[in-house]
């Protein structure tokens, strides 16, 4: 009988696979099996683009470039937009290493960089030994990586420069900003000849790499201590002459819902409006700026959040004849889609977006009226809000467009005193906006034009730092004091210094 029992035991153990603890994966692809086919191989690096979409919202980059400047503000409106002061901290330059937007950027940049490094290694890794075809592929990922590194040194200064996935150190040290700058310039100079122009604007192209290099040179004094902006001239003039891009006819063309094909756009992030339903990163700046009832103006399927506005002085710098005033902004009494007056559901007053914002924190018990709280501040419709738009826009977000190349060249020539070149690059933009010649074709004229034209496009912080005015007070009710010069850089997020204490040590070359 005992024997029988032991046989049963043995049988049980055999039947049940005894000690097999292999963890079989059913519903995702195991790392060892990826890529399975040529299609997956061809698209292996697409993940490198993913963080770009997040830069607009959760990733914090856009907030850090715009809400920290004199062109955009997120005031506290009664109940809304206090959010523990995270918006105030950006506007007043009192952010810390735990401010949400400051924390968010780092993750996105380095995730993109790691994806690029991994893809480059899958493609062979060594640019010197690569075949022409794989050189082009590698160049694409080197260009995106450079784009992320450019944003890293632009926002954080000294950062670890890591170019390998397989051989990366567990706890890297920071490299000096100038060292990283030199290396990404070198990378881009290698990549540009390998790259081709592309009609797919959300993909890397030669033009995208040239624009990145152009911006690096334009800001080279800030990044490396030496002004090499003049080196941007041949790069950008080649782009204008041979890139196949043309200036759009109307100020808003690059920002329409269907802006994929707009020949002015050089580098964009792809959105199709289904992001909200599918839990993907959204392009929802329109939700943040439009009034609670602006959905009735645009026939949107959802009520917006009534937040972001432009500062009064910025709005007032556009004259009545400037086509960008109506093109970019939503101001004055609002109407429904059908044309009736849009009445505030709380007060029955007409929704009227007035330029003046009385305070950074508005509430009735501190003397703001309900209409001021809800209506004040001119809102932004630079990106078209098409009828039926939901929580995420279907417009592609524009990182680089040809107008920016014109303005960069105008700025570099202006600092050399070359007024005719300034005129060459400024006039097409002013003409398109319905304006005549400026008082003079000098640096001031370029700065004004750049501020007005590229409003809302994530360049303002960088421009203000380059021009040395980022820490100034600006003409409004709240940013009255000079902020510390340290504020031209964001601190490395605490989450990162906690996870890698080497990031708190001085940078190396």
């Amino acid at each position, binding site marked *: 009988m005992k024997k029988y029992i032991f046989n049963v035991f043995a049988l*049980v153990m055999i039947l049940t696979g005894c000690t097999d603890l292999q963890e079989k994966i059913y519903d995702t692809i195991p790392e060892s099996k990826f890529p399975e086919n040529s299609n997956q191989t061809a698209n292996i690096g697409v993940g490198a683009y*993913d963080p770009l979409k997040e830069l607009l919202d959760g990733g914090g980059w856009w907030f850090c470039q715009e809400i920290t400047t004199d062109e955009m503000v997120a005031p506290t409106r009664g109940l809304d937009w206090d959010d523990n002061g995270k918006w105030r901290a950006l506007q007043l330059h009192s952010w810390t290493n735990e401010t949400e937007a400051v924390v968010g950027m780092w993750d996105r940049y380095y995730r993109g960089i790691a994806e690029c490094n991994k893809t480059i290694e899958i493609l062979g890794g060594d640019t010197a030994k690569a075949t022409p075809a794989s050189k082009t592929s590698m160049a694409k990922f080197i260009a995106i990586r450079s784009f992320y590194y450019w944003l890293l040194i632009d926002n954080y200064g000294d950062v670890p420069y890591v170019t390998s996935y397989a051989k990366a150190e567990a706890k890297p040290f920071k490299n000096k900003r100038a060292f990283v700058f030199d290396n990404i310039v070198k990378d881009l100079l290698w990549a540009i000849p390998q790259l081709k122009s592309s009609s797919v604007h959300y993909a890397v192209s030669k033009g995208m790499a040239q624009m990145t290099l152009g911006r690096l040179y334009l800001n080279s004094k800030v990044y490396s201590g030496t002004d090499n902006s003049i080196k941007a001239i041949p790069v950008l003039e080649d782009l204008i002459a041979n890139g196949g891009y043309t200036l759009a006819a109307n100020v808003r063309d690059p920002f329409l819902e269907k802006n994929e094909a707009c020949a002015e756009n050089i580098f964009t992030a792809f959105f199709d409006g289904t992001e909200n339903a599918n839990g993907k990163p959204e392009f929802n700046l329109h939700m943040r700026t439009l009034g609670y009832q602006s959905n009735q103006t645009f026939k949107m399927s959802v009520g917006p959040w009534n937040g972001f506005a432009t500062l009064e002085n910025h709005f007032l710098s556009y004259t009545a004849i400037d086509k960008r005033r109506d093109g970019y902004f939503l101001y004055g009494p609002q109407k429904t889609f059908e044309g009736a007056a849009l009445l505030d559901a709380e007060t029955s007053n007409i929704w009227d977006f007035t330029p003046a914002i009385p305070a950074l924190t508005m509430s009735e018990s501190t003397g703001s009226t309900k209409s001021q709280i809800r209506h004040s501040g001119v809102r932004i419709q630079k990106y078209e809000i098409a009828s039926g738009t939901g929580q995420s826009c279907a417009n592609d977000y524009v990182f680089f467009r040809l107008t920016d190349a014109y303005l960069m060249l105008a700025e570099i020539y202006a600092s050399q005193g070359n007024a005719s070149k300034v005129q060459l690059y400024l006039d097409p933009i002013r003409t398109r906006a319905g304006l005549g010649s400026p008082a003079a074709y000098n640096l001031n004229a370029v700065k004004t034009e750049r501020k007005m034209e590229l409003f809302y496009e994530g360049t303002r912080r960088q421009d203000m730092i380059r021009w040395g005015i980022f820490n100034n007070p600006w003409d409004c009710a709240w940013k009255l004091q000079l902020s510390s010069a340290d504020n031209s850089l964001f601190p490395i997020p605490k989450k990162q210094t906690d996870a890698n204490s080497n990031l708190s040590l001085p940078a190396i070359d």
Partner: protein
Amino acid sequence: MKYNHFKHKMSAFIAALAMFALSMTATAQLSVSGIVKDGKTGEAILGASVLEKGTNNGVITNFEGVFTMTVASKATLIVRYLGYLPEEVQVSGKTNLVILLKEDAVVLSEVVAIGYGVQKKSDKTGAVMNVTSADFNSGVLTDPIQAMQGKASGVVITKKGGNPNDAFSVQIRGAGGLLTGSSPIYVIDGIPGVDPTTVPAEDIESFNILKDASSTAIYGSRGANGVIIITTKKGSSTGGKRTINVNSYISMDQVAKRLDLLSASDIRSFITRNNLSQVDAGGNTDWQNEIYRNGFTQNHNISIGGGNEKSNYRISGTWSDFQGVVKGTDKQRFTTNANITQKLLNDKLVVDGNLSATFEENQYQDFGGNGPTDVMYQAFQRSPLQPVTNADGTYYENTPYGFQYFNPVAIINNIQNQRSAKRIRTNGSAQYEILPGLKAKLNGAYTRDDSESFYFVPASSPTSATKGKGERKYENHTTKLVEAFINYDKTFGVHTIAALGGYSWQGQTNDGFNAFGTNSQSTYVESNYLAALADVNYGSIGSYKNEWTLISFFARAAYDYDKKYFATATVRRDGSSKFGANKKWGIFPSGSLAWSIKNESFLQDASWLDQLKIRLGYGITGNTEKFDSYMSIPRIRATGMQPSMEDGVTKVITFKKDKEQNDNFQWESTQEFNFGLDWGVLNSKIQGSVELYSKRTVQLIYNYSIPQPPFLADNIYANAGTMTNKGIEANISYRVLTMRNFDFKTSLTFSHNINNLEKLSEGIYEWKDRQQSFINARGMVGQWTQLIEVGTPMGTWYLPHFVDISSDGAFRYATATGGVTRDVALAERRNAGSAVPKVNLGWSNSFTLFKNIDVNFTVRALLGYKVYNVSAMYFSNPTLLPSYNANQQAITWFEKGINGTPVASDYWLEDGSFVRLDNLTVGYNFPNTSKFGINKLRVYFTGGNLLTITGYKGIDPEISNEGMSFGLDNFNIYPKTRNFTLGLQLNF
């Protein structure tokens, strides 16, 4: 919504079951009667079984201990009652018998389930408690675990709010880990990992709670949070006669406490007084009235059981219908359970089979925060000036009025949110006695847990940003278990040994499927017909499948010498597929000793002392239950679809690695010492036990942020932290009075636990602290209230300290340097107390009057903890007025010019301590029912949550200490209910 049909079917089924039972009533020929009494006290014993030997003919004694039955004139009767030795009586023609039973000292001390076996309670060496059905709470039990709430020391059973669809939180000896949760593992009739809600309380014989590691180590990698062994009722093998039990109750539930908010007239007079402009829609609505209702609950259980020396069976059916006090929250459940045991081969082979099926229908409302469909928040914030409906009967919405502001009544009535679950558990075992004392057992089980969900928002609902949504979801879980083990029990003179050795294999497969679409073109079809949804995009269809396997070898040896010295050792070797390639296997040993001092000769004469025993145990256990599969290995997931980077047209799915690989990912390991003392004096009139424990959990698992660079994924699951829990538990019961007409028993349970985080980082896994418990309210995003860091317990509030309100109306906070500031960013964050109660108390009382009236009440208290009242913070905001509803404080502050969005500080912390009269039951047993063939007929009335004494001002202070974030009252406390239950128990 649509369950009436289901209800009718269930009622018919129960009626049929009852008819079947009645038809089985037996008949006989010659009549005897008698009385069964306690041989010592002479008290009548009710419920004793009287069986005619060698037949199935038997009865149960009635209230007076009297039985009447018809037997053969030369028959022998066997009389049995729990706690007494069986007595055999020759009838020999006598028709009137007096039968005296002797107490069985061994049986009286009961047995406790200890995992893969039982042990006499007096022999236990670990911290094991049991709660049997006689001590269960009565009244509305939405979850069977509620039956033992407050009854076992150190088992903290709590529930945030009163939603019938929410589960109870059960925590034994403090927080289990960071990600692991604290829930113990349930072992139901030998199957580990079964959801206890699939067993109706009426079908449960006992709960056995294994608390310390020396007891739970036999469950190895699953034992760290404690083990609750649930034993279900079996058919009686001694009564010889079938018995039918009916347990029914109906109950009315009310909202126990509402949030105190303003009325329409309060707001109108406020507007006039302050000369404000506000659109007045002319309503006069109490929105809480609109979403609350009185809930009607009913529960019916019927069981039929019987058997003889060779076989027994029990079949039961339970139908429950819970109506939540928030409209649109319902739960219906039908459970059926059938059990049969058969002895074969001269009683050497015992075969047991069990089949249980549970069908559940749920209807949900969202109430978890401040989202567009969170009905409680929407009702709280909604202006009383607004009506529920327009003149034409449509819902008054007036959207968009403000950020996520929607009519809660419309949400309840228009949004479909349902679930339907089917759960089947089947298990069988065969035990063979090879030699006297040597038994081998083979155990197999198969459980299947399937559910379907239905979700639909019509296009007309303003809550939807996607013009409506319809979704269907299926989830299936299949678990298989095979176990084989051998028990050997033997006594040689003064030496007793009990040994166990076995093997277990358990595997689970989970799979699911969901599909949704937006832009709904038909409201009529709801989610029943997804073809009516116009937009189906990439990502709208999902599916998953995963599995895990757990393989174990285990052994236990228990020895005692002369019932004075006891020793137990166990070891389990577990292998789990969930862990890293290098760490699949773990060994979990334990050892414990006990000394029964009372049984020493020097205490033999101390007649006042019945029991005195000390116990000492140590063990190592692990925790796997809460972890998903594949946490150690990276998986490549699809992250989205977009047109190709090359041509801008071809659709491309992008894939991304979700996390980094960790081959060293392994168990959290808990080392625990336990010291216990059991005592009883004065004929066990007063008895109790005390446990002291010290637990140390190492290799705590956390999802570590890893530096980018160099890692691609920003996280990895790794073991690095250490957490400790130390505490004391005590219980005492006192049989105060045992008089003929008055019996009074009271018992008290107490526990206190101290938690500490000792370490969070190791090697490359660095982690300094983490902000936790973020407030979730409109315009208040990003305000945190707790900090997880080394040296502090979980649940520690870490907040700016409120000093005063300045003369011009600003909140002022203390700074680190002893000053005062208005800028909360400059204030010092301080340890402001804990969300974990210092003391947990349960107090149960049982009175019996004149033998047929029983009164029971249970009081439960959680003392010494703080709750952060976000609801008060949010609704005190003057900025809400006059557009939204608020509380009186908001008016006061508005009129004083105190302003601004409230900021997180200790101002909003409140003492959560409460004492609750959980349960008061008065029952009446009808006497002399036996002449109608009824053994027992009891009716009872229960009041649930009749009284709560607390200083807490919100809806309810009871919180569950689950996970890393707890203690916030963030408009997400479903109202606790007060309920009145009328019940019937019938045995015939």
